[in-house]
């Protein structure tokens, strides 16, 4: 039976082509229909397994096990009924819908390993497909915003609100834009609009720092980056500007870390220091809101800068009820059961770090972070493997995933429709699915063994004798 299936391997390129089609559909975010993507992911994985069955090795699967396990834990906790009610923060998902979270995310992640078994899969083609779909969507969104609002409307009509159903919009016009959702254009928050142009901009690392050697690739991605820049400039926003700078910083840091080895350790130290400061800030945040030490709370309130950071900005006001609920009101309950959150009404923070907690518990949220950590760690081996893929493609993958994680940790709005109740948590986002695929691909490629030195010498000797 296996021998018969092994014969199918010669048709594996057709499945790889199908995979590219599916990735294009995901990157185009056609309607954000995660059930469709979940079903396609599952089908793709099954086909890849079928057509590459002889090539699948236990070693290969074990390389991504450390990534798949926390992902499995997270998706299982999301899907289980005990957490589903917490989703009704904005929409009441039921178990039939949530079951596609593990059924969709795990297969697409596993597919990142499976595609490496077929030599016809080229990372170059994958990147072209993803960025082309993003570019197409961005172009469509640019045109529809020009048609409906005109260029620079975020500046010209700052402070204006759009009337809908007799009420002015909850956000001013400079914080909203039109995007294509399925077959119609809907008004969404600006944070949703800027994602696509910013993702296009992530390819700038392979234009400015570690350029593509292939001229065609260079100019193609130059076009994509410029389209992203146009999409940001025509409708200027604070979010777009800040994250464009962040992307350039990511590019510079990646370049620095790769090119100047001496900077790697200091950069890692700086990263851990920043994370430490963040943890300290979180601790201070909790203390302040609980007024455990009223002297501490008074100190913060009396200092204008600290007061702005911890008390009076809209992000602090979003985070505090959730943090309070996790750490104080329902400390025990929040780890293993979400029942703590059933009656809690609070505003979503827009950060997956916090918003995953009510939907999968603290354990699930931690598993999610562990998964990301394992994913990024995979880049270390991948970048050092000179024979696997060109460096430019590697750094584009790293820039894409880095940006997406940073953006999702701060501004990933689950409810991003202005007038329509469009709900899409991060685990139902097609871009997140693409990122999972990238991670497992990177981890697999990074672990692929290079020939041992003795074997390499013998090969060279054979070549010379020949």
């Amino acid at each position, binding site marked *: 039976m296996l021998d018969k299936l092994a014969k199918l391997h010669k048709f594996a390129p057709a499945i790889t082509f199908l995979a590219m089609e599916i990735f294009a559909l995901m990157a185009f975010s056609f309607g954000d229909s995660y059930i469709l993507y979940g079903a396609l992911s599952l089908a793709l994985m099954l086909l890849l397994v079928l057509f590459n069955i002889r090539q699948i090795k236990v070693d290969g699967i074990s390389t991504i096990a450390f990534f798949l396990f926390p992902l499995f834990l997270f998706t299982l906790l999301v899907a289980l009924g005990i957490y589903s009610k917490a989703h009704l923060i904005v929409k009441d998902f039921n178990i039939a819908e949530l079951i596609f979270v593990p059924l969709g995310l795990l297969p697409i992640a596993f597919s990142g390993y499976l595609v490496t078994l077929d030599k016809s899969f080229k990372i170059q083609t994958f990147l072209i497909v993803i960025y082309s779909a993003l570019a197409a969507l961005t172009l469509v969104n*640019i*045109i529809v915003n*020009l*048609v*409906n*609002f*005109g*260029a620079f*409307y975020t500046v010209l*009509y700052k*402070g*204006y*609100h*759009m*009337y*809908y*159903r*007799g*009420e*002015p919009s909850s956000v001013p*016009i400079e914080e909203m834009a*039109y995007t294509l959702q399925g077959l119609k254009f809907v008004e969404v928050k600006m944070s949703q609009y800027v994602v696509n142009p910013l993702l296009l901009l992530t390819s700038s690392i392979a234009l400015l720092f570690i350029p593509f050697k292939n001229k065609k690739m260079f100019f193609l991605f130059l076009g994509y980056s410029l389209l992203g820049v*146009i999409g940001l400039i*025509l409708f200027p926003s604070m979010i777009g500007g800040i994250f464009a700078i962040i992307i350039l910083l990511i590019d510079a840091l990646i370049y620095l870390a790769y090119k100047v080895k001496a900077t790697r350790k200091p950069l890692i130290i700086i990263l851990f220091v920043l994370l430490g400061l963040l943890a300290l800030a979180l601790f201070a945040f909790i203390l302040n809101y609980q007024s455990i030490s009223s002297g501490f709370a008074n100190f913060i309130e009396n200092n204008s800068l600290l007061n702005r950071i911890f008390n009076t900005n809209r992000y602090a006001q979003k985070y505090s009820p959730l943090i309070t609920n996790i750490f104080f009101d329902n400390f025990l309950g929040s780890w293993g059961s979400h029942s703590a959150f059933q009656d809690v009404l609070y505003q979503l923070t827009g950060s997956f770090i916090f918003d995953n907690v009510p939907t999968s518990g603290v354990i699930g949220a931690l598993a999610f972070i562990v998964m990301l950590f394992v994913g990024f760690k995979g880049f270390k081996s991948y970048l050092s493997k000179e024979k696997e893929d060109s460096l430019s493609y590697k750094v584009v993958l790293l820039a894409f995933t880095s940006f997406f994680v940073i953006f999702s940790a701060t501004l990933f709005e689950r409810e991003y429709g202005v*007038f329509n109740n469009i709900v899409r948590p991060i685990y139902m986002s097609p871009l997140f699915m693409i990122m999972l695929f990238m991670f497992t691909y990177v981890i697999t490629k990074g672990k692929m063994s290079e020939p041992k030195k003795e074997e390499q010498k013998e090969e060279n000797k054979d070549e010379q004798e020949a």
Partner: protein
Amino acid sequence: MNKKLRYLLLLPIVGVLASCGGFSLDYIVDGDRYLSSDFNNNYYTSWNAELAESNKNPIKTFNEDDIYFIEKLDDAYLFDRNLLTNPDAKPEDPDYHKLKYLDVEEYGEVYKLNSLSDCFNYGVQSKLFDGISYCRGRYQRVRVQTNRKGFSVRLSKESDALDYFGIHFKATTNNQIKCYKVGSEEYATKDTELFHTSTFDLTVSIYCKNDNNEIACYNFIKHIEFINTTNNGSESNYKFVSFQLKDLPDGTPAGLTLRRCVGFSVQFNNLEDELISWNKEKGVSISEDDYALFIYEVFIPNTYWH
């Protein structure tokens, strides 16, 4: 020209052309305009350029001699059997004119235009299509306040055959002005003391496209007499007027069916207001701009929009 250059130039051209739209800019409003606690800041007198032009030369004007007006929802069943619990009932049946809907509020909730298409949900005018026919403490949020200048609404869809349409509104004066109570030598100190009646000609215009796609204006004028003019939200102070274009109850053909309606406008003139007249006598000048109509709902039932 070089092929690549041609393709490159296409993008900015598309961008420039696309930028000439601004279709959604009609629906945006600066700040708290139309929601202010200042009465004078809430007047909606926006006119679409096409409709304004058409309004200057109406094709036809209809008044009460030409078509039928219904001033109570209870009587509307004469033209719309769908309003009845038993549309097939005969005149001798006891439930012949038993209405499905208790009042304008229920009627509005069923026949609201925004349930037909999302195009009725945009702009300040969306307040007229949301099915909310009474104030109920929601004030500026649920009504369009207009003065003698009136306003127009240009719709992005066209209707099919249009047999009747209605409007639910209230008349009021600015309760922030200092003036005499009607028939009194004393100044009014509270809202209720400003109660009086007024008379005016209400003009509702319907704009339809003709075979040449030009917009034609049809005026429908209803003389409104001694309407309660007050800020008070009691249901008796509201006015329902329905303009019936179909055959009259006695069988007389009205001979009018409008098609391809793309908008409407509301205006009033020939105002005779007790409060203004009385205060004028007393030497207190009240501007006619301190008089307003609060339009709560516009009904255009039983037609398709495409």
